[in-house]
């Protein structure tokens, strides 16, 4: 049974769909509200005191007299806006969220959290969006083919490779790539987002440098990602092949390529699309290990450093963006699902 298209939906169905959209939007808002509140509570329950972290950073290497510390502590509390009752702090937080202002970063004071996120986001989004999409397309394409053409030696080999790559811990694979292309055969840059001493601009030299620097981190993500999508799609295709409509299509003499594309893969793709939406939403979490191993700029490192520094504002900023990213991804797929798969009831 091929998937239904928008044009075939009747007026009654559209009315049902509108109700469905309303309910999903309400769910979305509730999820975001709860998510952000949990992030707030967890952050404020952290045993790390940003003032003590700052004092430690300032005094670690300097000759600071102890009698000046209390004065410094008070100045920092005032400066960081850590005064007021918990309720006042909570209300201030929501006021800021609603005006898209996360306040200043405590570990990079007085730079606004928003500035730090905006600076890191394009790197993370660029790297993860491209690698996620490439891995998804390649994994699903090859997985679909492997599931359908089960006798192909090449595709069987692909399956073996995918099964071999899939369980390798990401860190190990990343280090292997790093050693292979950074040391044994040093042809690729192993650190940073672009070459040093190139101004950030849309010049061919800079763009090429960005692409070069993205190869290793992207390759590591794609290799791990492809395996996962490949195995998932191959299993899904195997299940779809047993469906009546595929059997009837084969009996009716429909060409195999058409069966594969219109009958098998299209139906098998539905859960994979859900997975893609979740993965794209998760882009806003950053890729901590990738960023650390390859020294790549991005949100993941920003978040981890903020946690260690007790930088509430920055942690909340990044997690809020992440919560919104995942929630929007899920919402988008929830809204698209009835259009992709008529078996989903919207009434």
């Amino acid at each position, binding site marked *: 049974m091929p998937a239904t298209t928008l044009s075939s939906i009747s007026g009654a169905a559209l009315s049902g769909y509108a109700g469905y959209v309303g309910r999903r939007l309400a769910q979305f808002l509730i999820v975001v509200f709860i998510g952000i509140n949990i992030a707030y509570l967890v952050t404020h329950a952290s*045993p*790390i005191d940003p003032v*003590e*972290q*700052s*004092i*430690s950073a*300032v005094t670690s*290497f*300097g*000759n*600071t*007299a*102890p*009698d*000046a*510390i209390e*004065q*410094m*502590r*008070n*100045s*920092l509390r005032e*400066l960081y806006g850590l005064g007021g009752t918990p309720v006042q702090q909570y209300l201030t937080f929501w006021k800021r969220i609603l005006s898209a202002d996360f306040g200043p*970063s405590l*570990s*990079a*004071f*007085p*730079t606004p959290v928003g500035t730090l996120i905006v600076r890191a986001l394009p*790197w993370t989004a660029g790297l993860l969006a491209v690698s996620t999409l490439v891995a998804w397309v390649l994994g699903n*394409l090859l997985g679909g083919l492997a599931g359908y053409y089960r006798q*192909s030696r*090449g595709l069987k080999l692909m399956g073996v490779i995918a099964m071999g790559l899939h369980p390798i811990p990401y860190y190990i694979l990343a*280090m292997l790539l*790093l050693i292979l292309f*950074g*040391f044994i055969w*040093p*042809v*690729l*840059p*192993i*650190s*940073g*987002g672009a*070459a*040093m*001493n*190139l101004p*950030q601009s849309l010049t061919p030299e800079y763009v090429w*440098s960005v692409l070069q620097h993205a*190869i290793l981190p992207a390759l590591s993500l794609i290799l791990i990602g492809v395996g996962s999508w490949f195995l998932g799609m191959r299993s899904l295709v195997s299940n779809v092949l047993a469906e009546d409509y595929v059997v009837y299509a084969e009996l009716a003499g429909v060409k195999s390529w058409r069966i594969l594309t219109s009958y098998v893969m299209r139906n098998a793709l539905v859960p994979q699309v859900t997975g893609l939406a979740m993965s794209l939403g998760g882009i806003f979490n950053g890729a901590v290990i990738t960023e650390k*191993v390859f*020294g790549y*700029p991005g949100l993941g490192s920003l978040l981890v*450093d903020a*946690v*260690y*520094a007790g930088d509430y504002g920055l942690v909340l900023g990044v997690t809020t963006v992440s919560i919104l990213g995942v929630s929007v991804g899920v919402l988008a797929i929830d809204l698209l699902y009835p259009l992709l798969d008529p078996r989903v009831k919207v009434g």
Partner: protein
Amino acid sequence: MRCIRALLLAACVLGSLVLASVAPGHAQGIPQNIPRQDLLILENPEGTVKNAGWFNIWVINASSQSNGLQQAALDTLWYIDPESGLDGVWDNSLAADKPQYNADFTEMTVKLRSGIFWSDGVEFTADDVVATVMTQIKHPAMRFSAVLTSNVASVDAPDPHTVVFKLKKPNSRFHTNFTVRWGAIWILPKHVFDKVEDPVKFDFNKPVSLGAYVLHSYDPDGKWYIWQLRDDWQRTTLARFGKPGPKYLAYVDPGPPEKRVIAQLNHELDVIHDIAPEGMFALAKQSKTTRAWFKGFPYGHPDPTLPAVIFNTQNENFRNPDVRWALALLIDIKAVAMAAYRGAATISAIGVPPTGTHPATYHAPMEDWLKSFEIDTGKRKIKPYDPTIGKQIADMLRPSMGDQIPTDPADIAKAFGRGWWKTDPVAAQELLEKAGFSKRGGAWMTPDGKPFSVRVMVEGDLRPVMTRAGTMIVQLWKQAGIDARIDVAQGTLPTRRAAGDFDTFIGWSVETWGGHPDLSYFLDSWHSQFVAEPGKPQPLRNWQRWSSPALDKIIEEIRTVGFDDPKSIELGKDYVKLAVKEMPTIPLMAYNVFTAMDQTYWTGFPTAENPYTNPVPNWGNSRYMFVRLKPAS
């Protein structure tokens, strides 16, 4: 199937083209458009700087410090070298002479050099020093505001090259605030800050430099900073020692330790700040051009910092010196040195780091006293000091490290330290029993009948060497029947340390100048006037919260003598003796920093044989290295 084959083929071709386009030999992790032979690449251990475009170092915790800013672009009145110095350990930098105090240390007069210029052509004068003080006093959010406010009654510039500080209370060490040991109060440009409405919100980008280098470019994402030698470098204080060798300095974030090793093997990172001992061993084995502080084992540069087991002496279990001594006598320092540094450690039995001038000032002269020192276990008197432990570590390593291990006793003492406390479980048992502890079924119980539990707090993978030391100590104490556990605090350590939320931790409360024997840098903060009540935050550095009237007396006497007065050394020795008797912390070893220097492009790095300064590149003092570096070719 043809389509699939075509697809796979296309993917292979595309991949090959990408790799072919980045042929071997193509510059990888080095700055573009700068001749390599003019460039020194150093690690900035701060990593990626979040607030990359912020150069106002005078605001609390706002910006990077060791991205080259304090090493290359800033300057202050004096420097003390942790090693021997280019021209002695004391350097009058912006000051023309040493500080002049009045008789009761309530006034300090500073004569300044003339002919020193900011990078924008404005001459440095006493007004800049006054502005540095007054701007910070006026703004509590500035880094040294509290220190200056609590000390300075007034500051005046009677002429362009004289500054007079009047202090609120006697302070014979006030000048140390303007004396670089890693960092200090850096002088700010009055003519720039005068035009700024709110200095706390001013990013100081592009920074006007008083050092020999100016900012050339930086990464908005905080991965690298490049500094360029000033055309008028002769008009800076560093010029007294000659022209700096590198025309450009790049301070970079090279990533985790394994990448630092790869980068140096690829000759893309001239100076690694620090790596794990294993990384240093790998470099020593694989790179013919890498040089560390010591030519061979133990390689690392001993920082003037003393890692120790720090007790929370406000905890009932650790109030009694007999208990602290018992725990010290259960430690096998050789095992700890092996676990922490794979043997590449410089041990110290006393509360002074075994580095810089200290071995000659404290360790060697006090050796006889240590040998005759006795403790009363309650049943007998023992002499716990074993002067041969450094040699034992060297002997233990010699079979595997061969010629790298020195044989001359003086060299062994320099590399591995002198003696330490003998492991003596019997004496430890006697001391614990003397303190009212008892052993039941192989487990020690406190005087009130509870299991003797000791948590050893460490920072985990944030400071792996110290974590390994702590883990070994836990194991040794467990073997003796103590309920010891490792307590991995990770990033919460500064918060918990200040709050007193620990039994013991592996860290340091002793830091010294290294090159100067005065101990007040840390010791003044150990006065009982600064000890917080339990539950209240403890100001640095007396994390052990130890109060001692005898120590207070020593500190108060040090406050009344001048910084260079030989009497302060005698008082320092009195502190060492008291700390040995009371054991408020168990000193372990110097904090060895495995700074690795690649000599492919530059030679003349400071080493143990030529210790003209500290090679650790995040220290402000490392600027002296620049004038000694020469192109390798």
